[in-house]
Every structure is written in structure tokens, then in C-alpha cells.
């Protein structure tokens, strides 16, 4: 097999495994901040119990995120050396910012979050939780900036760089802020955040729903469930708007990607339909068994029913052909799941308002397994974004006349000296390690969930102990007063 395909498979395997954890950490980070804040304000021990429980779960996910994250950083160099030489100058600032502002912050304060309960004050512990949550969000900022630059390059230009008399082209920075705020950064960042919040919330809902179905830790589970339900509802509703802006942005800056998402092979003369379902056939260049709304894509892109949207037939000369079937299905699966999340969370909110939420066992069962759908939605969303960008690893930019220039093709980006045998070997190694890690992850999560929140936790009695201390102090004072007499 060829080294490009193998390297792409390895990247897909390692990044999809890694991406199980970061959105979960971002989402759960927010849940932790909320719970610990409530504990600080209300002193209600149930919030303390809840914070401690979700901190344990958070710790398991964080460790796996770090372990699988180092692989990603190394892999740019090991498998994609030509790409690294091409983008190094542009990624430089983003990577430096991620290291300095995010990694140190997260991992440093994580120690306090996990092990510092008995060593620091409540306020400082809350501060540490806040810093860990902030660190994971900062991290997402810089990695999305770098990835968005690959999708819609800005603030950079191509320059000839010379090594020992050998010249080659690479991208160099021109304007830092134009690079950071390239046309897709903000839209994609917001999209990633809402997806992460939805996942984190649905993760907490899954575990809470399970407790409710089993009749365990009822009070704890109800509060975790409803709090997270609110977050999931807001995030998945907001995702609808964010998704719309992203589609508009893709239509403008990556027209071939949009055409692949929509299975839009031929431009045609009249309005372009929007497929809700279908089976794009790349040989015959048509969508089979499609269910479509006539003219709807034209409406979304051009704001009228009749103007045709440019199809792949007119785009492939300049942009090449992205794999249509995979782009179409991953994109449609993401949207379908998003709609399902909106419908199910709204239904749950409605039932909550009517007071029947916790009687609907089928709904609770749905939410027990719903988290796996949220994982799928996060993964296929990224798959659509990355597959739709092909055959480019760094997308070219279109000039005013429509001609494209710049960019780097994926086939040209792999390491010069790495052989397919080596990559096959490392895929097998990663496959084996990740299978083991996955089993371990499920096992440990399951164990933590079965054990449940620590009700006997000494710290959960904090307020009682505080009041006891108050009594003792009062007595001592009284005794002192008597003696003085």
C-alpha cells in the first residue's frame, strides 16, 4: 500500500482516538466550574460530593487526552515532514501560544484540582478548577486557529526558502492577527465549543440517567441531570445557528467542499436541491435514492430558489475532487444527530417543566446511550471538515478572477524518507495500544460510575464540621469569660 494512504489512515486513527477526550474535557470542565461555584456559594454538601465525583471522571479522561495528544504533536514531524516544513513558520506562533498559555496552565493546575483538596483553601481550589477549564479552552483556540488556517489561509504568503542552495516554497507569516482571525477561525471555534459543551453535558446526563434508572444517588443524579440538560439544550440549539454560519462560510471560501458535502455533482440550469438523505455514486456522478428539497441549497447559498449553486463539474479543474461519498455521509450524519439532540433535549425540558421527566424511563434510557451519539457527532463533524478539504492539506486561495493559487496537496505532504512498511508497523502498534487504552478507559469509567459519588466522604460533611467547630469555639470563649470573672 502506498505511504500516503497509510499515513492518512494512521492520522485518522490517532486523531479520532485523541478527539474522544478533548471535547469531553472542555465540556466537563464547564460542568466542574459550575458545580464547584455552587458549592462555594451555597455550602450545600451535595455540590461538594458532585464536584469530587466529576473531578475523578475528569481526571481519567484528562490522562488519556494527554497520552494520546503527544502522539499528535510528534506525528506532524514523523509522517508529514514536507507539510511541517511548509507550515512551520505559520504554525509557529500558534503552537508557541498553545504551549505557553494552555498546556502549562492545564497540567499545572490539574495537580491542585485532583490532589489538592486537603492542601489548599476552597477558594484556591475553585481557582485551580477555573484555570484547568480555561486551559482546555485556550488549547482549543490555538489548535483550531492552526487548522482553520489550513482550511482558509490568510495573513501569510508563499516564500522561497533556501537550504544549502536548494530552494523550496513555504508559507510565511505576514500579519499575525489576520492569520489568527482567518475567515473560518471564529465560526469553527464556536462550532467546536458548542459540540464540546453538548458532549460534556450529555456525558454527565448519561451517568445521571443511569443512576436514576437504578434508583441510586437520586438527589445527586437529579441535580446533575437537570443542570446538564439545560447546558445540552442551549448548546445544541445554538449549534443550529453556528452550523448555518459555517455552511455559509464554506460556500464562500471552500466551494468544492460544500459541493462534496451536498453531493452536488452537476451545476445545472435551475435551482439546486438540498439532499436530506442519499447515496452519492462517484462513478455515475449522481446521488442515488436521494430525498431532496428542491431549490433549498440555492436558497441557503444565494437567498433565492432559482440561481444554481456551482457544482463539482465546474470546480474540479481548479480545486480537484474531494471524496464525495464520505464527505456527504459524515456531513449528513452530523446534521442528523444535531437535529436529534435538539428534539430530544427540548422534549426532555418540556417533560421537566410538566414534572414528568423522571417518570419517562425510555427517555432516561435514551440519554444513557445518547452520549455515544454525541461522540459520533463530534467525530464525524471533524471527518467531514477534513475529508471535504481533500485533495488539499493546506487549501488554496481563490483570486478575484476565480483562479486558485497556493496551497499544498496531501499527496505531496508526507515525509520524504518514511516507507510504507514503517507506517504499517506504527499503525499496528497504535491500533494495539489504543485498543488496550480504550478497554482500560471503559473499564475505569465503569468502575468509577458503579462506585458512585462518595457519600461517606469526610469533606461532604464539611459544613457540619464547621458548625461543630463553631460550637467548640463558642464554648472556649464562654469558659474564658467565666474564668475572667
Amino acid at each position, binding site marked *: 500500500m502506498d505511504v500516503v494512504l497509510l499515513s492518512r489512515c494512521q492520522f485518522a486513527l490517532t486523531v479520532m482516538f485523541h478527539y474522544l477526550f478533548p471535547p469531553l474535557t472542555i465540556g466537563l470542565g464547564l460542568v466542574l466550574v459550575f458545580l464547584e461555584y455552587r458549592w462555594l456559594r451555597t455550602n450545600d454538601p451535595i455540590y461538594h460530593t458532585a464536584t469530587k465525583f466529576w473531578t475523578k471522571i475528569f481526571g481519567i479522561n484528562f490522562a488519556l487526552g494527554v497520552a494520546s495528544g503527544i502522539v499528535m504533536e510528534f506525528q506532524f514531524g*514523523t509522517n508529514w515532514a514536507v507539510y511541517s516544513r511548509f507550515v512551520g513558520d505559520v504554525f509557529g506562533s500558534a503552537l508557541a501560544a498553545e504551549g505557553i498559555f494552555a498546556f502549562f496552565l492545564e497540567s499545572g*493546575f490539574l495537580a491542585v484540582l485532583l490532589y489538592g483538596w486537603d492542601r489548599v483553601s476552597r477558594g484556591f481550589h475553585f481557582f485551580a478548577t477555573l484555570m484547568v477549564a480555561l486551559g482546555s479552552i485556550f488549547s482549543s483556540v490555538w489548535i483550531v486557529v492552526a487548522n482553520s488556517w489550513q482550511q482558509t489561509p490568510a495573513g501569510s504568503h508563499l516564500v522561497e526558502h533556501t537550504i*544549502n542552495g536548494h530552494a523550496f516554497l513555504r508559507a510565511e507569516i505576514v500579519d499575525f492577527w489576520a492569520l489568527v482571525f482567518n475567515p473560518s477561525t471564529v465560526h469553527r471555534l464556536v462550532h467546536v465549543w458548542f459540540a464540546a459543551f453538548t458532549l460534556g453535558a450529555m456525558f454527565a446526563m448519561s451517568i445521571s440517567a443511569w443512576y436514576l434508572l437504578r434508583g441510586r444517588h437520586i438527589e445527586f443524579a437529579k441535580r446533575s441531570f437537570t443542570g446538564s440538560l439545560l447546558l445540552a439544550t442551549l448548546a445544541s440549539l445554538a449549534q443550529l445557528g453556528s452550523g448555518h454560519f459555517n455552511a455559509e462560510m464554506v460556500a464562500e471560501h471552500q466551494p468544492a467542499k460544500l459541493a462534496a458535502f451536498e453531493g452536488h455533482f452537476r451545476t445545472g440550469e435551475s435551482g439546486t436541491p438540498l439532499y436530506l438523505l442519499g447515496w452519492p455514486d462517484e462513478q455515475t456522478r449522481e446521488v442515488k435514492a436521494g430525498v431532496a428539497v428542491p431549490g433549498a441549497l440555492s436558497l441557503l447559498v444565494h437567498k433565492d430558489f432559482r440561481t444554481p449553486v456551482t457544482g463539482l463539474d465546474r470546480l474540479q479543474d481548479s480545486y480537484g475532487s474531494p471524496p464525495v461519498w464520505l464527505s456527504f455521509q459524515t456531513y449528513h450524519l452530523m446534521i442528523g444527530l444535531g437535529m436529534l439532540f435538539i428534539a430530544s433535549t427540548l422534549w426532555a425540558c418540556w417533560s421537566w417543566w410538566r414534572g414528568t421527566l423522571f417518570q419517562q424511563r425510555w427517555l432516561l434510557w435514551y440519554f444513557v446511550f445518547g452520549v455515544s451519539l454525541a461522540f459520533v457527532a463530534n467525530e464525524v463533524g471533524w471527518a467531514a471538515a477534513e475529508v471535504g478539504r481533500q485533495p488539499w492539506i493546506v487549501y488554496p486561495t481563490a483570486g478575484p478572477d476565480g483562479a486558485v493559487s497556493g496551497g499544498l496537496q496531501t499527496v505531496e505532504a508526507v515525509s520524504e524518507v518514511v516507507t510504507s512498511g514503517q507506517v504499517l508497523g506504527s499503525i499496528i502498534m497504535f491500533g494495539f495500544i489504543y485498543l488496550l487504552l480504550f478497554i482500560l478507559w471503559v473499564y475505569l469509567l465503569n468502575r468509577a460510575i458503579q462506585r458512585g459519588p462518595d457519600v461517606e466522604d469526610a469533606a461532604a460533611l464539611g459544613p457540619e464540621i464547621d458548625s461543630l467547630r463553631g460550637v467548640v469555639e463558642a464554648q472556649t470563649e464562654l469558659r474564658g469569660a467565666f474564668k475572667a470573672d
Partner: protein
Amino acid sequence: MDLNLTWFLLLGVLLAGYAILDGFDLGVGMLHLLARGDDQRRTFIETIGPIWDGNEVWLVTFGGALFAAFPEAYATIFSGFYFVFMLVLLALIARAVALEFRSKTESAAWRQAWDVVFCLASTLATLLFGVGVGNAMVGVPLNERGIYIGGFFDLLNPYSLLVGLLALTMFLMHGSLYLHLKTTGELHARVGRWLGRTYAMFVVAYVLVSGATLWFIPRATAFFQAYPAAWLVVALNVLAVVGIPYALRRGWSGRAFVASCLTVCAFVLLLGLALYPNLVTSSPAAENSLTIYNAASSQKTLWIMLVIALLGMPFVIGYTSIIYWVFRGRVAVGEGAYH
């Protein structure tokens, strides 16, 4: 001083930070199987439990900074030494998993298995880092475009393996000094008895590597002829090495550990002096070397990165110190232990 040199120095700072910090927890990992019984082993892990993750971030940041400041060197090294980096990843992941998950269940077999993984992975990672530094000193075959053209077994030359041995003994010593600082009671006394042995092994490796370097790598000493002031680094190195037993004999385990940190730091400085201005030395064709000038990002990027580093580093140093302060003191399993 130009921006390229500044980033060469900053990479040195990151590498020294990594070697000092992860050095002791790699050392603890290698010594792990010598601890007797579950309580002692848990104590070992407890001494590094809250901080190993932060220590490893120095490596991640070093890798990121190398990519950002000198992409040509990053691409050549990581793709050229493909198999080595896969082994490093294997070792680091296995270590992380062993550390985090060993104490999650009561089963003795589960714990024993992860203890062995922890020890082997720490040893493998240290050895690979040492061999890597050895090859940086010897130089590796590059073509005129600055791409590695050797194979895996070219990396296993005698000199590099000797430096691998130095890394193993140095981190064993560094780790045992750290444990000596962080343990109490019977375990403290046991660790105290290892100090002499790990120190002796380190000194033997140190002398061997110094001799081999003078003998086989003439370009390593070129800098010293041009700038005699660089001998101060050698003096610092020797003083730090001698300072360790001096401090220990007086019962100052804290100062002995500081001397050990300085020893590690001096080695990184010596490496930098021996390499300068190269990042990847080409051998035999020395003119193909990747230097801090031909392998670098543009001046504009180096400048922006410097601004970011200057803005962020005071905070990093500030809160990292606070966190180390929070977890100061000796560790005895039983009180508030999470491992």
C-alpha cells in the same frame, strides 16, 4: 544576540527544564521495582503523582518550540528517526497509563503488571533520549537538502550507546536523590543506601563519556578554543558533580538534589556549546548540517514567538512555583493519598 540564537537558548532552557523535572520522575520509574511491597511502591508514585504530567509538558513545549522556531530541524529529526520516535511514544504512553491506572484496583497482579510496565517504560524512554543526544553529538548522515539518509541501526553506534548509559545512570542518581528528599522513615533509610551506588555508576559513565567525547568528537571542543570562557560551564559541571557527595555527607539532602539539578543543567549547556550553531550535525558531509540559521522560521515568526514567550513565561514560572510549594514536603502513604 540575534533572534535565532535567542531561540536556540530558549530551546536549551526548555530542554534543561524537561531534563531536570522529568529526569527525576523517570529515575523514580527506573527505581520503582526496587521498592518493597505495595506501600513503598505507592509512596514512590505518590512522590511524583501530582507533578509528572506537568513535567512532561516541558517536552511537549520543547517539541512545539522546535517545530515552530526551526521547522526544518523538526521535520528532519522526526521523520528521519521514525522508529525511534514511535518507541518514545510507546514508552511515554505506557508510562502515563501505568502511573495513572496502577492503583485504580486492588488486585495484586494488576498492580504488579503495571509496576513492571512503569519501570521498563521509564528505562526505555531514558535510554532513547540518551542515544538521541549521543547521535546529536556524533552527527548523522544528511543529504544536501538536509534530509536524513541513514537507517535505524546507524543510530546504535558505540558512542551514542555510551551516552545512553550516561543518561540512565544520571537519572537513576537524580531520581534517588529526589526520593531521598521526599520519603520518610525506613524507606528514606533504604533510599539513602542506594545513593552511593547510583552516584558511583554515574561517575563511571561520566568519565567514560567525557573521555570518548574528547577522543572521538573533535568538533565538540572547537567552541572552547574560540571562547575560553566556556570552560566555566565545564567547571560548573565538575563542581556540581563533586557537590553531590559533599552535601550528602553533611546530611543536606536538599542541597544534594540542587547539585544534581545543576549537573543535569550543565550537561544541557555543554550539549548546546558542542552543537552550536548546528541543530542537526551532518556527518560525514559537514556542509549539509542544519543550523539555527538555515533551518529557522522567518524573523517575523521568531519575533512574534518571543513576544508570546515573554508575555506568558512569568505566569508559567509563577504558578508552577506556587504549585510545587503546595505539594512540598515528604510523602507517606496513608494520609490523603490518591494513588
